[in-house]
């Protein structure tokens, strides 16, 4: 299968005295594949995702989507990106945000109207008339997902897409990923919810301190009788805060 998104020997840091946020990572995502990007907080996952979305640039190495540099606006025409903690122009309504973004994607009036109804309906925001500033975090996350779908993307990048969603919303996102895979869309899922990743992703990469630690199919990485969470905990057990003893110090 051809790579829709490709990251090759990429290094990235935010200042010459800062540690490398991404340090020599290579990975690729193929059409019709769901790829899970995992790692503890500060591992460099969002930095990789932002480079793929054309929001930041690598210091070394190359990043390609659809064979082109994501900094080129044309390369992002078939990209859908749902950022972590999304926000939007706060005095606009949800349907206006989608119309605005639809125009930026070069859609005509008919396409914009149709796709806005479709995406807002899927996100459970159909008929919502309030401005974005009156939205809850969950509603903003739903709108973040809806705006990512407006282009009918061939590559969908989801950065912690379910962190503020209720169980129904989480189920809807999982179903969406499965449906998109069947449609041939490549999905890059960056999430801490390992059970979800295990359910929907074909391949997984685990990153720590900017370096790729493991990569493979879920079956390759997870031995029989164990879960992805078990594998993850085993990998990073030494790094986690001291378990137990914290409340014990409080006394009776």
């Amino acid at each position: 299968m051809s790579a829709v998104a490709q990251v090759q020997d990429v290094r990235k840091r935010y200042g010459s005295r800062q540690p490398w946020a991404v340090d020599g990572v290579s990975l690729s995502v193929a059409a019709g594949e769901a790829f899970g990007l995992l790692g503890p907080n500060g591992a460099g996952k969002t930095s990789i995702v932002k480079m793929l979305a054309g929001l930041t640039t690598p210091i070394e190495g190359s990043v390609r989507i659809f064979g082109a540099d994501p900094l080129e606006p044309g390369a992002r025409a078939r990209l859908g990106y749902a950022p972590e903690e999304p926000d939007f122009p706060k005095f606009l309504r949800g349907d206006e945000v989608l119309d605005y973004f639809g125009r930026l994607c070069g859609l005509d009036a008919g396409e914009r109207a149709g796709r806005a109804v479709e995406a807002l309906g899927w996100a459970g925001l159909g008929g919502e008339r309030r401005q974005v500033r009156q939205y809850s975090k969950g509603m903003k996350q739903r709108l973040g997902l809806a705006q990512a779908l407006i282009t009918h993307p061939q590559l969908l990048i989801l950065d912690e897409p379910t962190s503020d969603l209720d169980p129904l919303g989480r189920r809807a996102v999982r179903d969406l990923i499965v449906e998109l895979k069947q449609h041939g869309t490549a999905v890059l899922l960056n999430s801490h919810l390992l059970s979800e990743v295990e359910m929907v992703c074909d391949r997984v990469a685990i990153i720590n301190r900017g370096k790729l630690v493991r990569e493979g199919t879920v079956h390759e990485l997870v031995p029989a009788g164990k879960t992805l969470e078990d594998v993850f905990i085993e990998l990073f057990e030494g790094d986690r805060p001291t378990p137990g003893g914290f409340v014990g110090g409080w006394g009776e």
Partner: protein
Amino acid sequence: MKVLAIALYTVRELARRKLLYFLIGGGALLVILAGIGLVLLRANAPEGTVPVGDYSGFVLITMTTGISFFGVSFFTWIAAVAISVTLINHDLESGSVVSIFSKPVSRLEYAAGKVLAAAATLLVTSTVLGVGTWIVVLSQGGGHEAPLAKTFVLIAANQLTQMLIILPLSVRLNNIVAAIIGVVVVQLAKLVGTAHLLMHAIQDVGTPISSTVSDGFRLATRVVDVLYWLVPRYLESDLQKEVYSQSSDAAFSGSSPLINVSDWTDVAFWAAWIALLFALLFLALRSREV
């Protein structure tokens, strides 16, 4: 099309913020009060205390336009500062720019759309207040329509300069710091413009002064001349000149060297500054990681 989309939705956002209506309302109130004050002055003045004939028209129109322009200039200036500190900075700080920049839109198109929206908003603000002033002038006998219209366009142009100085700074700095630096730069530029006008007026008059003072003055004039070509220029219409030319009093002569009227060189210089500031805005946005 993408530039227009960004401009359209930015204008829509600005139109929904109460601040703009407050500023337009404040300016309009000042213009209306100026008009009412002049009507009352005329109606209640004892016989003979208000000059008559051309001179009367001159005084009234000067007062009207003076007060009104203060209102229009001041409130459009506040609008320019208030809009520019939030126009791009809020998108960056809130993170809404993340979703926008992941779409197939270049940062040049984003910058152009934002500036187009800002310019349109300033022009509308200036026009609304300008029409108010024109109505007041009309109530006092009318006249000066062409220079009045030119004045309001130039007010919007001047405030666009103010806005474009703040915008690139607001991409890199805290928006309050950006506003303070931007306002100081524009005030210094105005000071240089005024000093340039005054010094050349003194030279033209040819007042005899001692050689020591004369040398110092010449040096200062040269420094100001250099600065004058380095800082943004404040555009001024011929309204003041036209109004003053009605006066029969020599002190208010329309040919006074202290009355500055911008010519096409000044407009070209302004346009060059606008292009330079826009380029700075684009570069600030291009290098900004979100």
